[in-house]
């Protein structure tokens, strides 16, 4: 006969004591990357959460197990690889290659001048044109970027923040030229300015007018692009800047609350815009902590939207998110090892119930990915989906004593942070005071020290090194691109209807001054080939520029 639980547990505890006296454990204390303590074992007597209240079924509040009733049994997550470099033509070629390879959504990387609202011929753009993404100056570039890609058939995610309204306007204009109405367009703009101040750096205007641009987009899309995700509230870059998993969730959700507050203040109805809010998280190496993080985030957002904001529509409660594997976890040393890291991270994202996923390429610690590396990264997702069987049941980690305990812990710690931010006066205020920046930096520095003291092992970096040859097979952006891009834009300026451009910019300025929604005016301006830089400069004049802390 089986012995009772308590007796078994006591026996085990005795065994542990004997064993550890002779063979001490690897560490005195174990903890996650967020410094959450890890017990030796998790057992049924520790969880006191009610299943109905805290976990529930997929597609049911609080969505701990997923936002759809059938999850990946109906359809796999969207495999969406972020790509873009050099000219619009080159990127268009890579996009069509990726679609041919079975990718199911597009994700556009823009170069830094585009992301900060400078045309390629602006002195500030010197040396940066086409480097980290595609250079877009005018609608002409955008037309080339989506050449032969039917916008009613693909969904497109655009990593664009401060000038999000301009690039979205160009997307609308390209759609119309293809005969696709705005209402048919699907996709996402990142449009998350708060994390730019915190972690990523591509801000233009000060926080207040930036928040207004965002709510202008919310209002415009509600009317015209009902299927488009108006924002992707991003923890990804917060994590890349060195935050812990707990901070990633906490700061992202705090930022999300700031956008909801701003939209409500602008007179929008929560259930009108909240269903179009999307999230974007990171996936790092600590498998269980990452999977638990996604589950915790879903539960937290559901409760905040329902209880704090009183949203009635269940769509407003659902945290839908994209995941990208962790760029900062990749090593330049022994780059093929990165394929294994990416696999673990991607698996954690799938276990966490992600809606779409980007897997990084092995060579991204060195340069932008080559075509071969990008293919392996996509194949990694396809293998997880088609060969591993992990997508065949919903939330397979649910009910794991450890994962449920971690989910609770992350929720608790993140809620404590959110409370502190609310006490400061909300995320916008906390950003202006540098609160999140300081917390992230402290965590990043601690992690660096743990690595340099070999307390944390990074394979190939501080242990298991080998002598390596210089990696020569890297993607290089042609240095001549900058010049040809400048020529192209010059030609656009010479051949467009200049009075129409001037008039559209004048109207935009007026709308900015009168506090009217600027979005329709930006759409008009891009249609007559006003450039990203020209439109951003009008708003710079009116809103001022943010110069950092």
């Amino acid at each position: 006969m089986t012995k009772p639980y308590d007796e078994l547990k006591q026996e085990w505890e005795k065994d542990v004591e004997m064993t550890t006296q002779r063979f001490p454990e690897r560490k005195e204390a174990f903890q996650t990357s967020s410094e959450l303590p890890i017990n030796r074992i998790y057992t049924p007597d520790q969880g006191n959460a009610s299943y109905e209240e805290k976990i529930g079924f997929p597609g049911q509040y609080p969505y701990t197990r997923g936002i759809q009733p059938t999850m990946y049994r109906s359809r796999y997550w969207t495999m969406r690889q972020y790509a873009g470099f050099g000219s619009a033509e080159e990127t268009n070629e890579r996009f069509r290659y990726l679609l041919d390879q079975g990718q199911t959504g597009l994700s556009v990387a823009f170069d830094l001048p585009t992301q900060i609202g400078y045309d390629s011929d602006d002195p500030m753009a010197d040396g940066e044109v086409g480097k980290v993404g595609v250079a877009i100056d005018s609608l002409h570039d955008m037309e080339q970027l989506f050449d032969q890609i039917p916008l009613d058939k693909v969904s497109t995610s655009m990593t664009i923040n401060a000038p999000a309204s301009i690039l979205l306007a160009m997307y609308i204009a390209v759609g119309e030229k293809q005969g696709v109405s705005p209402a048919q367009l699907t996709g996402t703009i990142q449009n998350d300015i708060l994390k730019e101040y915190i972690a990523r750096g591509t801000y233009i205007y000060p926080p207040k007018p930036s928040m207004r641009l965002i709510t202008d987009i919310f209002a415009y899309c509600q009317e015209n692009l009902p299927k488009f995700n108006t924002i992707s509230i991003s923890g990804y870059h917060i994590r890349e800047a060195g935050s812990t998993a707990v901070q990633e969730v906490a700061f992202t959700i705090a930022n999300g609350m700031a956008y909801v507050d701003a939209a409500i203040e602008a007179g929008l109805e929560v259930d009108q815009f909240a269903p179009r809010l999307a999230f974007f998280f990171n996936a790092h190496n600590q498998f269980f902590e990452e999977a638990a993080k996604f589950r915790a985030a879903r539960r937290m957002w559901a409760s905040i939207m329902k209880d704090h904001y009183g949203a009635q529509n269940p769509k407003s409660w659902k945290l839908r998110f994209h995941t990208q594997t962790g760029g900062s976890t990749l090593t330049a040393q022994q780059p093929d090892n990165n394929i294994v890291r990416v696999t673990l991270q991607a698996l954690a994202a799938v276990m966490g119930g992600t809606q779409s996923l980007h897997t990084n390429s092995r060579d991204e610690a060195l340069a932008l990915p080559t075509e071969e590396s990008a293919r392996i990264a996509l194949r990694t997702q396809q293998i997880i989906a088609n060969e591993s069987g992990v997508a065949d049941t919903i939330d397979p980690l649910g009910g794991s004593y450890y994962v449920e305990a971690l989910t609770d812990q992350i929720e608790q710690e993140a809620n404590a942070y959110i409370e502190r931010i609310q006490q400061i006066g909300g995320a916008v205020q906390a950003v202006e005071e540098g609160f999140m920046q300081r917390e992230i930096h402290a965590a990043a520095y601690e992690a660096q020290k743990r690595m340099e003291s070999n307390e944390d092992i990074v394979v190939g970096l501080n242990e298991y090194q080998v002598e390596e040859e210089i990696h020569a097979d890297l993607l290089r952006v042609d240095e001549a691109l900058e010049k040809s891009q400048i020529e192209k834009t010059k030609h656009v300026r010479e051949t467009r209807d200049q009075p129409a451009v001037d008039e559209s910019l004048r109207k935009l300025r007026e709308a900015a001054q009168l506090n009217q929604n600027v979005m329709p005016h930006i759409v008009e301006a891009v249609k007559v080939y006003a450039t990203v830089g020209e439109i951003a400069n009008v708003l710079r004049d009116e809103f001022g520029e943010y110069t950092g802390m």
Partner: protein
Amino acid sequence: MTMKPIRVLIAKPGLDGHDRGALIIAQALRDHGMEVIYTGLRQSAVQIARAAIQEDVDVVGLSSLSGAHKSLFPKVVEALENENAADIPVIGGGVIPAEDIPYLEEHGVKKIFTSGSPTDAIAVYIKQLFEGQAIESPKKIAHIGIAVESIDLSLPFYQHTLGLSLEAVEEVESEQVKVAFLKIGETMFELLEPLSESSPIQSFLTKKGPGVHHIALEVDDIHKRLEQYQSQGIKLIHETPKDGAHDSQIAFLHPKAANGVLFELSQPKE
């Protein structure tokens, strides 16, 4: 040596917004007792040069992860020259492919630290730069060591086929080898013959057969150099100098530190 703390300007040229690395380096250098000024994002080359002069820094550290380093870093060097501050050394880091490093060094960047460099190594490097202890180039190739089974049997090739003249033959007790020196230009060949089974040359011969064994570099600061290497964590076979042929002081670096090449440091008798 000065007691004044070293002042460092950490700068982000261009539009790149990734400053995790820059912030970590800034803090690590502060922990090493330096005074660090961080410029913040999006600085032009001229802004960086002016900040360096205004803040009276000893060294400028640049960080870029956007791939624009080849155009941005040399511009900062140029801007410092234009402001008559070419004496302020510029170092850099970020996502920089190894093959770009020679270009950057040719354009005046003193040193590039790529992804994965420990912060300690950067701090040590800066300290050395500022304390005038920067590594000097070795004087010349003192000799090329060639392992042979027998000096007597090998000499005819060097003397008759190549036409070199024999300078000296001696035994180095500590290494259990007999050596023969043949002069060529301002350097020499050193033929090495094991004197016993325990000689390192014997194990080399057993493992790899006869052939090039090591390259000796003449230096005049062997003690200081070994200390510096040690503090930088460079793997050494000899941590302190030992007696070599011709009453020289010698020490070997570990081939792991030098991509598989065995280097000897050799300081001739005064």
